[in-house]
């Protein structure tokens, strides 16, 4: 129902509030600040790229929370693995 409105007027502010809160609370609850998270991310990239040929710009590392259980989700596509390059083409 609201998708047409959203096209016309953009996302409603309550939805921004909700998604921003959900993001920040995952970090607050895990006591991992976005800055520390960035350092962990860099450590992981460094550790893997020492051994494997990877493209750091494809790596996704996210915090997730489901029914009170927090996890760190790391997705590292390996280079030359014929992975679809949709992300790259939309980024460029």
């Amino acid at each position, binding site marked *: 129902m609201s998708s047409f409105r959203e096209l016309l007027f953009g996302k409603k502010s*309550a939805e921004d*509030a909700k998604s921003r809160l959900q993001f920040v609370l995952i970090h*607050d609850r895990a006591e991992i600040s976005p800055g520390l998270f960035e350092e962990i991310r860099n450590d992981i990239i460094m550790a893997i790229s020492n051994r494997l040929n990877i493209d750091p710009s494809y790596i996704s590392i996210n915090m997730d929370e489901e029914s009170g259980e927090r996890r760190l989700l790391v997705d590292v596509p390996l280079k030359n693995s014929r992975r679809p390059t949709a992300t790259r083409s939309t980024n460029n």
Partner: protein
Amino acid sequence: MDSVVITITSGKGGVGKTTTTANIGTALALLGKKVVIADADIGLRNLDIVLGLENRIVYDSVDFIEGRCKLRQALIRDKRAGELYLLPAAQTRDKTAIKPQQMVDMINELRDEFHYILIDSPAGIEQGFQTAIAPADRVIVIINPEVSSVRDADRVIGLVEAHQKGPAMLIVNRIDSARVKKKDMLSVEDITEILSSQVIGIVPEDEEILSSTNRGQPVVLNSKGSAAQAYRDIARRIVGESVPLTMPSTGSFWQKLFGRA
């Protein structure tokens, strides 16, 4: 007497803790309960002025703790609402004047005589908050539908659980159903989803609150307005009545929400 001690807190300041405490306490007394509302905001007391009892304070809780009066002497009766009493905070001291264990002992002394003891917590999560929740059987967290309040509430809910006082219950205060409808304000449903806690009250933004506070007359005393009704409903839920949780001035969708909570 089977007494219940409820601490009302929020983390963030200015969300309506004191107004809520005054109105729920008054509403409980109007239901025929014997009620004390205790101000734990030492140094920044306001329950007295919100209730219109500021001219009647002789002794306060710190006077009792330090042995200058009996607890009974520090209680001020509010005759407008049956058996309602205010236990004021000291205004010229700070949060260190009462230790958590002293608070527990003081409140325990009231348990024999009263059905409900409501404690108005100071803002923040430091010693004043710790002292305010120490005697609590239940904790209510007041939230405004905006990001800083919800984030702080999440922190407080975690601390309440860490102190084995959980699960905290929520009151969403100052909600504007028109703005929620336009998706320009977080809904009660959004807030329960983000915080995964139970909501026991939804209080609308209501102009009447300011004028009643100006006069020192809690709205539940004589108003038929929507905020007054919301406070009365919360009091009835606290005493165990089953009152459907309704979004002020909207329909049955909110009752479904309560069924799920």
